[in-house]
């Protein structure tokens, strides 16, 4: 196809181009006559049109870009007064001249600190003055361009990226700037410049027409060079503003795609350090995908790879190559719940969702997404469309700057739940009703269709339904009032959910606009989190299950007297499995079950309570070389204790030797029945190397009598080590105290343990509490 065929414009675009050209022509006549009047026919100086004026695309109120080129600097002093009069005349004629005065030699060389000039000269055009000067300028600049195209393209790319950063790198602004925002007119022109530098031309007819028409209207409405498509302007320009904005985003996406191609072409040079790094990334290539210049390409475009291409991009933080995006247009693979989970578990899940949105796959596999695509919901605070807000929220979890929330995120074992909830949290917006209720309803439908397991479904639905809870409390309720704490406890129910909800709230606020998460809000959210955390932690023991409703008789007898937390953290399937396990106690003293999900194992033990039992099991597991991640111990009214230990099989010992699971079960049974001393087993284990000095920290043991009516709360934070839990539980037993409830957690090399203990059926008197604290501190240090 010839260039002229490619560039043939639609009648609409032609008419708009004519409008701009006609304005250019009018302005040009005025400028020429002013030049003739004030500068005259003197030699050694020429006037060139640059920028939009040079392109003959002058908008009603935009600046008139002029270059006054002089043969040599010696011309300047004689020109000063006439030039001043010339420019003043243009201002008086209601034009806004934006001028530069430069020598021909300066224009014909590259200037890193004056890239604007080189770019504006791409659209140079003679207007008036000495034609010889313009010819000389034209020749010199053309010669410069011939040898500096690559450098100029790279500089243009850097400038474009810097401009995009000012708009948070997204086209999806509720009130976009139709000149400078990503996907708008400046980008469209940038694409043209890139093509020009490569000796090609391109027509972006439809976007040009739409964006140009919109900008002309904005100039007419505001009577000045104002380019923000404000809500007010949207209402003035279109009868249906929502449809108008959908149109805007459609064209902005088209421009963005073309620009992406141009930027990709200009971005890498294998000779540079960055280029070599990009090449090094190509080692990430697999049998399915190639990584080239940090972009993912499909090896076999015909092959259905499910969501793996997106998962691959997300795992390595890579973007899809424009070619891949084109090939995957409207790609709609069959997606299972496991696929979603794998995708959401990657560190850069937002990258995957962006890629899926680009290809149309997100709305293909999640049709509900269409409801919020490019959806403008007018709001004083929100800056982005609903879909963009959602993706920004997911991305915000990938770079949490505040140390407290960054740590909190690491405490959540399944952050993918939070990401999925974020994906759906505003899906009901635009429905006209209460968006929280609508989002929760839609989330329920989506999760049912995806056949999500009951617990995952409950967790995600909970987060969507309550996603405004913490924001509302942090601004609307007294954080010093115990009623607020109780309100949060009743809504959130478990520490696990609280952590998920806090991170979801953090992401939701952060994604409202770049300034939304002020230190003020951060502090309020953290205080709200702490309030609920304290209330949930201290309420662990005091709330017990009594006269269980809505459960079978078998379940009810087992549940009676267990802490309420047990009911909130176990599904009915898990409760039934425990009820069945408890029945084994009719024929044996100890019932043990070991299950696993990949390399994470869960051991559940039930027995009649016996002093030192919890310590013994912890010791047996550690003696086996397994690392305890979490543990819980509860007991019910029948005196049955339910101990659960979650541990990691980091060395794949159990996975590769299935008989070892039987050996572990037998060992636990022997220890639980008092037939084996766990202390002796632990002593036989080799001592691990202590952590580096930098990683070490002082242990802390807090003993509180005010947290519960009937038991003493012991909170321990210590460096984790094999056998630590055994030593702590042993110290409690040796102090003749009973462990009523235990909640053990680990975070990297830190152990975080909560015990509710009693002595003689009640709280520990002060001297005994002090003694226990001292004994536990010694145990933390392995003394």
């Amino acid at each position, binding site marked *: 196809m010839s260039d002229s065929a490619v560039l043939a414009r639609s009648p609409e675009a032609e008419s708009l181009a004519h409008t701009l050209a006609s304005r250019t022509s009018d302005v040009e006549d005025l400028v020429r006559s002013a030049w003739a009047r004030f500068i005259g026919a003197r030699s050694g100086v020429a006037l060139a049109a640059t920028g939009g004026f040079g392109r003959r695309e002058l908008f009603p109120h935009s600046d008139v870009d002029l270059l006054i080129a002089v043969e040599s600097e010696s011309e300047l002093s004689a020109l000063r007064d006439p030039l001043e009069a010339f420019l003043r005349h243009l201002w008086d004629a209601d034009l806004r001249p934006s001028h530069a005065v430069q020598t021909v030699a300066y224009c014909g060389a590259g200037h890193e600190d004056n890239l604007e000039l080189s770019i504006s000269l791409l659209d140079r055009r003679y207007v008036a003055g000495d034609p010889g000067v313009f010819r000389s300028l034209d020749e010199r600049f053309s010669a410069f361009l011939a040898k500096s195209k690559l450098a100029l393209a790279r500089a243009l790319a850097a400038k474009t990226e810097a401009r995009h950063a000012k708009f948070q790198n997204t086209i999806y602004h509720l009130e976009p700037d139709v000149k400078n925002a990503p996907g708008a007119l400046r980008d469209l022109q940038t694409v043209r410049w890139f093509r020009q530098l490569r000796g090609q031309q391109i027509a972006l007819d439809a976007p040009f027409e739409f964006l140009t028409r919109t900008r002309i209207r904005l100039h007419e409405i505001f009577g000045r060079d104002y380019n923000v498509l404000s809500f007010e302007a949207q209402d003035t320009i279109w009868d249906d503003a929502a449809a108008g904005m959908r149109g805007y985003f459609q064209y902005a996406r088209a421009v963005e795609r073309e620009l992406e191609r141009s930027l990709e072409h200009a971005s890498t040079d294998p000779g540079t350090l960055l280029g070599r790094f990009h090449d090094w990334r190509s080692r990430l290539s697999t049998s399915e995908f190639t990584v080239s210049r940090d972009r993912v390409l499909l090896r076999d475009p015909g092959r259905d790879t499910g969501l793996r291409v997106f998962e691959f991009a997300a795992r390595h933080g890579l973007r899809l190559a424009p070619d891949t995006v084109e090939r995957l247009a409207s790609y709609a693979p069959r997606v299972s719940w496991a696929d979603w989970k794998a995708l959401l578990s990657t560190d850069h899940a937002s990258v995957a969702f962006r890629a899926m949105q680009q290809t149309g796959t997100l709305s293909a596999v999640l049709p509900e997404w269409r409801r919020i695509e490019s959806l403008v919901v007018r709001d004083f605070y929100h800056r982005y469309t609903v879909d963009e807000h959602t993706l920004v929220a997911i991305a915000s979890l990938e770079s949490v700057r505040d140390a*407290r929330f960054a*740590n909190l995120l690491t*405490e959540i074992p399944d952050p993918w739940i939070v990401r999925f909830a974020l994906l759906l949290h505003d899906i009901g917006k635009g429905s006209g009703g209460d968006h929280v209720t609508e989002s929760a309803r839609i989330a329920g439908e989506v999760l049912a269709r995806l056949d999500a397991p009951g617990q995952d479904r409950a967790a995600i639905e909970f987060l969507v339904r309550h996603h405004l809870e913490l924001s509302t409390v*942090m*601004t*609307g*309720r*007294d*954080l*010093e009032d115990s009623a607020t704490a109780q309100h949060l406890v009743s809504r959130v129910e478990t520490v696990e959910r609280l952590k998920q909800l806090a991170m979801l709230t953090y992401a939701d606020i952060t994604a409202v606009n770049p300034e939304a998460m*002020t*230190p*003020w*809000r951060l*502090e*309020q959210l953290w*205080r709200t989190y*702490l309030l609920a*955390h304290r209330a949930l932690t201290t309420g662990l023991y005091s709330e017990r299950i009594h006269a269980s409703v809505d459960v079978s008789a078998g379940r009810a007898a087992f549940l009676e007297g267990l802490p309420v937390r047990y009911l909130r953290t176990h599904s009915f399937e898990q409760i039934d499995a425990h009820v069945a396990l408890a029945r084994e106690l009719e024929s044996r003293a100890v019932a043990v079950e070991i299950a696993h999900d990949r390399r994470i194992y869960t051991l559940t033990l039930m027995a009649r309570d016996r002093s030192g039992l919890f310590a013994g099991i912890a010791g047996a597991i550690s003696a086996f070389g397994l690392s305890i991640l979490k543990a819980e111990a509860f007991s019910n009214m029948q005196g049955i204790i339910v101990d659960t230990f979650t541990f990691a099989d980091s060395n794949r010992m159990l996975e590769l030797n299935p008989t070892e699971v039987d050996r572990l079960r037998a060992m636990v049974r022997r220890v639980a029945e008092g037939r084996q001393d766990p202390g002796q087993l632990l002593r036989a284990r080799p001592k691990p190397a202590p952590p580096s000095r930098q990683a070490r*920290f002082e242990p*802390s043991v*807090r003993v509180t009598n005010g947290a519960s009516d009937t038991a003493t709360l012991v909170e321990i*934070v210590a460096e984790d080590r094999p056998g630590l839990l055994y030593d702590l539980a042993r110290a409690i037993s040796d102090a003749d105290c009973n462990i009523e409830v235990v909640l053990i957690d680990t*975070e990297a090399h*830190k152990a*975080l343990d909560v015990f509710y203990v009693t002595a003689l059926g009640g709280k520990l008197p002060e001297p005994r509490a002090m003694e226990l604290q001292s004994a536990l501190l010694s145990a933390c240090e392995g003394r």
Partner: protein
Amino acid sequence: MKKIEAVIQPHKLEDVKEALKGIGIDGMTVIEVRGHGRQKGHKEIYRGMEYQVDLLPKIKLEMVVAEARAEEVVRTLATAARTGKIGDGKIFISDVAEAIRIRNDDRGEAAL
């Protein structure tokens, strides 16, 4: 004219706004601020880590009212913002020399 500045608990903002609206005061500037008075800061312990909380989130309200109404506004504001606990905040009153509405150059109380 009097300028009234009040530092209040964040959760009291809606009550105060409603109360002021009730006596015909609609115009005010609301600023999210952090600070402490006698309440001072305190230490929060979370999972073994100590966090010094020395600047507590508060809301600052600013409004300029006719001198004759200042006392009524202050009384209404204080009543609505009060919980009786430490940290309820403070109200400051100062004289305002002039007020100008930028749009039409109204001056004095007419500009309020």
